[in-house]
């Protein structure tokens, strides 16, 4: 399977032999150089399986970096903005990392396997940056993306599927906990994490065992309405969960050509991820300065009147002053609300009324403009008790 790149420009996930035959609509998208399923057949039905039953998503194209060595903890702490010392082995944490100007390069999850061993998972590639930041640290950084496959099992009935596999120990997993099992003679990690804002687990194991795990999950999930989902359905769930995505809701600083496009964690509404008390980290000085002078803009959630999704809509204070733009938007089938994630300039990010979105509506190839009132709404838009209840609720 070592085709030259000109014959196989896109990589195949270790699960391709399973996902491809199920992708009846043949709708694929690119993800980090991999072919990834956009929609198996019906985005709506896939989305509802996330909120009603159980779903599988092939997470393998995710980048995974193993960070190990005596200085691993110090290194990771220096790399990301949040506190890592408090992260116990067996725990997972959401984090962002910035450049020296305090602008976010990417977000991801940090798994702490042991005192001196971490894994950082992210959407984009960061080996260069991680190696650059390692200068002076006794740490080993390895891109293990190809070696480790990942399957995300999400939905209110996902624990039932886990149970059907005989993995009852997962019952006590709290959100952001992880545990380890033996699977087909190799190690498998299960973390209670996900991108849906629902109950869910992510399975991490050697790529060559991924197909076997997928088959077992599909079989165990039969009785619980399991179905594979593509990235479109996942995207709907993540908007409801209020999560932001690089390149969608903001420009990663490393990829922006215009220097003003970089966004700090404060501007992304991720203040809680910045810990100034933990010692130095990349971007600290710039972030301190920003904290001093106040951020220029902020990512917020919006609740918009009417039912027309406000995709890429501009936002106005009053009817004429442009003060921001929507970056993700949808009619939420679960909340029955017209929701959006947007960036608003200061001080409009705290306005309680008088905000309008300008929505362009395609009425059979005749475009019309609609102005809809909106207000800033708390994220997550959807936050069911089952997301965090431990042991998992019977739903």
């Amino acid at each position, binding site marked *: 399977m070592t085709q030259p790149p000109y014959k196989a420009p896109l990589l195949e996930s270790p699960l391709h032999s399973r996902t491809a035959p199920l992708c009846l*609509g043949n709708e694929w998208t690119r993800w980090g150089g991999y072919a990834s399923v956009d929609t198996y*057949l*019906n985005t*709506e*039905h896939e989305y*509802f399986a996330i*909120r*009603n*039953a159980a779903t599988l998503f092939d997470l393998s194209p995710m980048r995974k970096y193993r960070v190990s060595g005596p200085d691993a903890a110090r290194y990771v702490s220096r790399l990301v903005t949040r506190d890592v010392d408090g992260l116990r082995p067996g725990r997972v944490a959401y984090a962002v990392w910035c450049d020296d100007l305090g602008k976010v390069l990417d977000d991801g999850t940090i798994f702490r396997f042991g005192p001196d061993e971490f894994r950082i998972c992210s959407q984009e590639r960061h080996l260069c940056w991680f190696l650059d930041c390692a200068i002076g640290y006794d740490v080993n950084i390895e891109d293990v993306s190809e070696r480790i496959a990942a399957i995300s099992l999400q939905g209110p*009935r996902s624990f039932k599927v886990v149970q059907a596999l005989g993995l009852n120990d997962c019952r006590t997993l709290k959100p952001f906990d992880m545990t380890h099992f033996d699977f087909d003679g190799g190690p498998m990690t299960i973390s209670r994490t996900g991108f849906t804002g629902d109950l869910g687990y992510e399975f991490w194991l050697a790529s060559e065992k991924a197909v076997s795990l997928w088959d077992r999950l599909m079989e165990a999930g039969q*009785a*619980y*309405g399991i179905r594979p989902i593509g990235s479109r359905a996942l995207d709907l769930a993540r908007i409801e969960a209020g999560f932001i995505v690089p390149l969608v809701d903001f420009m990663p600083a490393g990829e922006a050509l215009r220097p003003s496009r970089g966004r700090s964690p404060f501007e992304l509404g991720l203040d809680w991820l910045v810990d100034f008390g933990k010692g130095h980290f990349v971007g600290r000085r710039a972030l301190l300065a920003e904290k001093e002078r106040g951020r220029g803009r902020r990512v917020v959630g919006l609740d918009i*009147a009417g*039912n027309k999704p406000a995709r890429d809509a501009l936002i106005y204070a009053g009817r004429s002053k442009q003060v921001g733009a929507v970056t993700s938007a949808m*009619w939420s*089938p*679960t*909340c*029955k*609300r017209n929701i959006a994630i947007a960036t608003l300039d200061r001080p409009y990010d705290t306005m309680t009324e008088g905000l309008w979105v300008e929505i362009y509506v395609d009425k059979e190839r005749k475009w019309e403009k609609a102005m809809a*009132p909106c207000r800033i709404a708390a994220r997550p838009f959807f936050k069911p008790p089952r997301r965090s209840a431990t042991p998992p609720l019977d*739903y």
Partner: protein
Amino acid sequence: MYLLILALFECMGAKASLREGVRTFMKSYDAIVIGAGHNGLTAAAYLAGAGLKVVVLERNPHIGGASISREIYPGFTYSNCSYVSSLMRPEIMRDLELPKYGLQIIPYEGGLTMTRDGGYLASYTDHDMSRREIARHSARDAEAYDRYANEVLRQCRFIKPMLMQTPPDPTSFKPRDIKGLWDLGRAFHDLGEEAMYDTIRFWTMSCTDFLEQYFESEVVKAHLAGTSIIGTALGPSSPGSAYVLLHHYMGEVDGNIGSWGFARGGMGAIARAMAAALEARGGQVRTEAEVAQVIVRNGKATGVALASGEEVHARIVVSNMDVKRTFLKAMDSKDLSEDFLRQVRNFKIRGSSGKLNIALDGMPDFPAVPKDCPALQGDLHITDSIESLERAYDDWKNGMWSRRPYVDMMIPTLLDPTMAPDGKHYMSVFVQYVPPKLADGEWSTEKRDAFGATVINAIAEYSPNFKDLILHAEVRTPHELENEVGLTEGNIFHGELTFDQLMFNRPIPGYAQYRAPVRNMYMCGSSTHPGGGVMGAPGANAAREILRDLKMGGTGAA
């Protein structure tokens, strides 16, 4: 929504004085709603949201009316009456924050009709899949389907804006009625010349005639004709049945027009969420509080007398009961004009449907259909020609349940895990036609069971292991629907959806704007515009009119 909120702030003063006025009574409310069906609860929740002190009085020990789910056989939850949702207006779900109170509507995949010769025709949500499926039966029909769907959607677009509007009165010179008629006329004109002619035909023609214009395959026609007769005492060839088909198409699930879904946990989840929304707004539901009569003094409704003898007073009385039950049973005929009563008596509200709710020990086999066919999750049918639908209707005319009934059969547990234990299934079987009165006399337990057996045998012809899997079956004829749920003659729509009883003629000409002939009394049930189908629109529209009369409303409740 925003307008309403603004309007409410403006009207805080009015509300306060209203409160002041009624505080002198004990057990006194701003508004009483009779019946905790989904429309009664909707109206009540909107009124409570506007600040009124509201009580909903329900005869049964449980709420929901025909939007109900109950555990009758251990471990199984039945949607005892209505069983699928599409028409429920999204504006209402949003205004009342029903998701917050647990409501979740899950769309399902298509449906299928099994044929006498052992084949099947499925419909799917995927357009290409559906076209290839129809082409197995007729290549021509596969393409005609696009034309058909286009025409139906055009009609839906025309009707949809009217659902959440009070029908304008064509005899009135009030500015709002004139504006309403003007808007209606303009929307009609905007359809274009050809569609204007088609619209009039569509609203009056038979479903058979409508489908004949497009299709040649018998099974394709039969599959599509089903929705034209559901809940209706019309045959597919009766004039007016084409509109009923449209009525079932004009709903949506999250913007997908014509799509249908299950309420997770059964249709009772809708009523439960509404009741919770009502209570969160300070309203109250009283069960086992049967209203015997609406009290009228000096031409004004002032409250109700319960069957227990207790009186409950309120400034306003709103009836969620159907129009016959409201005016012929719960009111003193002296309080109403003879002319009005005559029209109420003439209102067509014929029962035509029955329902079986079945607990199954496993998934039944349908040898005609591949086991992994996703359409099995949808509505299943066993009537493969319009001719046999029409014959089924003949039996109804003769005062007999259909010997070969039309069924709209679903297995919600394929998608909704909450209604049956793992591995077992709940099957909902809607049956057409079942007369409210039989030629050989009243319904009896024996006749009800014989009817149930007819349906089960009909299904068993297509599923050899079906009977063996039955753990329990609840059989409901129009007799039960009338006596247990309160639907006159068992009519699921609170009155036929025929052109003579729609829009400004629903329920009674001159009384289409939710106001009863008695002052301070209103109607909010499905007898009013836009009719039945677990839509919530009559309730929301009625609430808007009430708030308007109280000078507490904006231009719209939604």
